[in-house]
């Protein structure tokens, strides 16, 4: 048997393999509840896009494809560095683990920075749903619904990014203290699952929100 200090083995598990399997499965169950939560938003979006397509298309053109595509690339890059962080953890390479985690955090912060710039533009263009909302033309009610979905979906996604950054910061501290090794790195692995899941949500949000009827 491995020593508890090096493997982090809790007393209710037979061995580290069983403990790791339980942790991975637990994270996947959590991610399934996340799929259902975002799924409700995606379902509502789908219904209104089908009903209000002209307004959704016109409103979508007020989003900047450049910022959206840049953020997609930034998040995909962060998924790569997160995968490399998990890889470093599995090999017991502490410095590489800390380094890749920090790069992942940098990408995550960049994404949120771009999002803040976009939100600021929407504020100045009076496109934030509420009493101050202004939209040219007679499709403003449909555009109002579009921007309600835009802020609800990207806002919930951004909240997940903030939580993810907190988790990564905690991992950096734990890694710095030498808590992880080739034998025990499950927290890094399941945090990676969460980070990649948030990336996947954006992979769907980008075409759904930014790329409606762009050929006109």
């Amino acid at each position, binding site marked *: 048997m491995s020593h508890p200090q090096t493997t982090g083995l809790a007393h209710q598990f037979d061995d580290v393999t069983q403990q790791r399997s339980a942790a991975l499965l637990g994270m996947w169950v959590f991610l399934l509840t996340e799929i259902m939560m975002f799924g409700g938003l995606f*379902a509502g979006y789908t219904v209104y896009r089908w009903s209000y397509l002209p307004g959704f298309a016109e409103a979508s053109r007020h989003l900047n494809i450049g910022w959206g595509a840049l953020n997609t690339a930034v998040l995909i890059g962060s998924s790569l560095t997160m995968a490399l962080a998990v890889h470093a953890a599995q090999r017991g390479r502490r410095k590489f683990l800390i380094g890749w985690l920090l790069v992942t955090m940098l990408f995550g912060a960049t994404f949120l920075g771009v999002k803040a710039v976009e939100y600021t533009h929407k504020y100045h263009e009076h496109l934030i749903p509420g009493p101050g909302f202004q939209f040219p033309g007679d499709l403003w009610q449909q555009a109002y619904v579009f921007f309600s979905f835009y802020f609800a979906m990207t806002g919930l996604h951004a909240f997940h990014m903030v939580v993810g950054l907190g988790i990564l910061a905690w991992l950096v501290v734990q890694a710095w203290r030498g808590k992880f090794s080739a034998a025990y790195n499950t927290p890094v692995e399941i945090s990676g699952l969460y980070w990649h899941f948030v990336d996947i949500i954006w992979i769907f949000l980008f075409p759904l929100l930014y790329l409606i009827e762009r050929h006109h």
Partner: protein
Amino acid sequence: MNQHLCSPKLYLAIFAGLLVLTGVTVIVAFFNLGPFNMVVAMSIAVVKATLVVLFFMHVRYSEHLIWVFVGAGVLWLGILLLLLMSDYLTRAWLAGLAG
């Protein structure tokens, strides 16, 4: 431990593939394919998500129980979206019958 170690080269290849697909989805959006714009955009997104799930999230190398759980998530999301749209997409047919 039954951890499977992927090579960083594989991760880089997946990363490159995801970037290319992002570029393709942006370019295709500027061509008028009618209703197929949505189909193409969503198909590319599904391919990208599948690559992330299989390789970055290691599902390809995970035990079968994980496959069952991931499959259940996709299935339930599919039920939510398909049954919902089977209602909305067919309402026009009924309106035609009533008219």
